[in-house]
């Protein structure tokens, strides 16, 4: 996304003016300063404090890598990373598959296209925690009732209370909410393909399946990469839907990295969780860079 939307380099608009007009400084730098105070300073502060024994207030001293060593040998945190990565991976695949198919269907020759699009976008505009509460009622009450009536034993108990199935509920609700934004981007992508490409393919006798495989997918590759990057980044930060559904449970089965970091605030292990957050940051940057490398290869088609 970032790479593809840069202004034209070397814009000629003001090159004949030797100095930058002061008003441009006024337009930009106060915002950059505020941004630095609100985001960069806390980030740097957190990283520095991760090398200390601070509990969030009062005096502290530097303890080197102690926190990091502890983080790497903490089964609870390792489990949170395992869960978060697995959950993000499954959700990103599910969301993109469904959103892509929906985008193709919603741009086809169908009735009530506008209304259907409007309906499919609604989940995007609902608060994650609130919809998680609604779904937690459905998972805890309606689903077991229905399963009992149908005699389907595995679902007669709430899946939210089942340590090996609770993550499925988290994936379902997260996907439910994340599909619309991916869908909007895919609709934009599908609409950007000129229709004569399809007409030519149809003349050559390409089947709809072949058209999908050889035209739609390759020509929307850039959009797929964007959706995967954005989606993965968002799912790695999963917090409020999990809080509303399972509160990280049962036990710690669905505790995400974000949840374990936030727990540092109430549990007093501030610097320890800052080390966790720093590792999380490094992982996020590495994943973003890997995905950006992939983008460079793909967006040029």
């Amino acid at each position, binding site marked *: 996304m970032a790479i593809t939307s840069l202004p034209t380099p070397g814009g000629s608009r003001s090159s004949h003016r030797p100095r930058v007009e002061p008003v441009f400084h006024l337009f930009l730098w106060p*915002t950059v300063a505020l941004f630095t105070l609100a985001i960069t300073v806390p980030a740097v502060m957190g990283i520095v404090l991760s090398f200390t024994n601070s509990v969030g207030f009062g005096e502290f001293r530097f303890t080197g890598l102690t926190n990091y060593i502890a983080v790497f040998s903490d089964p609870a945190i390792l489990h949170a990373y395992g869960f978060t990565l697995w959950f993000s991976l499954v959700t990103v695949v599910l969301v993109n598959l469904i959103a892509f198919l929906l985008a193709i269907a919603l741009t086809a020759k*169908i009735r009530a296209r506008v209304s259907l699009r409007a309906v499919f976008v609604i989940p995007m505009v609902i608060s994650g925690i609130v919809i998680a509460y609604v779904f937690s009622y459905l998972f805890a009450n309606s689903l077991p009732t229905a399963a009992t009536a149908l005699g389907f034993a595995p679902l007669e108990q709430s899946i939210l209370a089942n340590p090996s199935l609770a993550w499925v509920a988290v994936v379902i609700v997260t996907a439910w909410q994340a599909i619309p934004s991916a869908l909007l981007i895919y609709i934009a992508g599908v609409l950007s393909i000129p229709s004569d490409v399809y007409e030519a393919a149809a003349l050559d006798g390409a089947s709809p399946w072949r058209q999908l495989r050889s035209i739609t997918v390759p020509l929307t590759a850039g959009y797929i990469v964007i959706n995967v990057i954005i989606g993965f980044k968002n799912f790695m930060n999963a917090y409020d839907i999990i809080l509303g559904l399972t509160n990280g449970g049962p036990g710690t089965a669905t505790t995400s990295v974000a949840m374990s970091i936030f727990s540092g605030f109430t549990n007093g292990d501030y610097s320890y969780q800052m080390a966790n957050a720093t590792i999380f940051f490094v992982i996020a940057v590495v994943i973003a860079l890997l995905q950006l490398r992939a983008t460079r290869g793909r967006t040029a088609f």
Partner: protein
Amino acid sequence: MTTQLTVGQPEAVASVGESRHATRVGAGRSRTNWPLTIVLAVCSLTVLVPLYVTLSMAFKTTSQSVDGNAFSLPWPVSVSGFGQAWQLTDFPRSFAISVFIAAIAVGGTILLSSFAAYAISHNWQRRAFRWAFFYLLAAMFLPFPVVALSQVKLTGMVHLDNPIGVAILHVMFQLAFSVMLFTAFLRSIPAELEESARIDGASTAQVFWRLIFPLLAPMSATVGIFAFLASWNDYVMPSLITSNPALQTLPVLQQMFQTQFSNNYNVSFASYLMAMAPSILVYLFTQRWVMSGLTQGAIK
């Protein structure tokens, strides 16, 4: 004249997209694809059923809401759940706080990011401005949990552990996405337009306010809607930053129904409905901007 043209642009873009696309699946035939329409209608139930459950539960009596059947129609119809939810969440106050935060977030995001994008796109050949762009954009890759704990500490130190602090942070986290959209949009405005205004003797600030800002209106609508949705629906930031529970936002207050009042489903669902209705309404009235903003320039 130019302003009107540009304001009308999203519809034009959308309709061009539609007509160009009219015959995609079903190559060349202009018949309606009924099987696909029916499949989509059935799929849309996955969206509609949870919303229906919320709506019907909210209008049930307490005794009907605990009978275990979430899908039954409310009978007798009762609005007592709304009354209790209204009192429990102190609705007028929590609603006002949510609106206050969202309003600052929307206004602040549109103004600060359009200012920044204008300065950046005008001085792109200067390294400092280019770096500022990437610097702001980098925030898109910064996970919120990384900065959260320090932000809680810092906002507490400067007495911004309140809705104002939350609103400022909402603006800051929305900057990356919004500056990117505005910068992409500013590229599409021909430089000649601005030059002709300058020949008439307008200063840069005047050019911005009289020419550029009105031209940005469709993009401002998109940026504003996304800022509104992000702010209104946010749970993490207000719950962590705001220290006084009496100043909490509507979505955050919904957690009380998980503990204290967990068995009055009609009350909790009435409250959920009141918390989600404003954003659904805003979306229904503004949906064309949601779509158009993404189709033009943003992701190309």
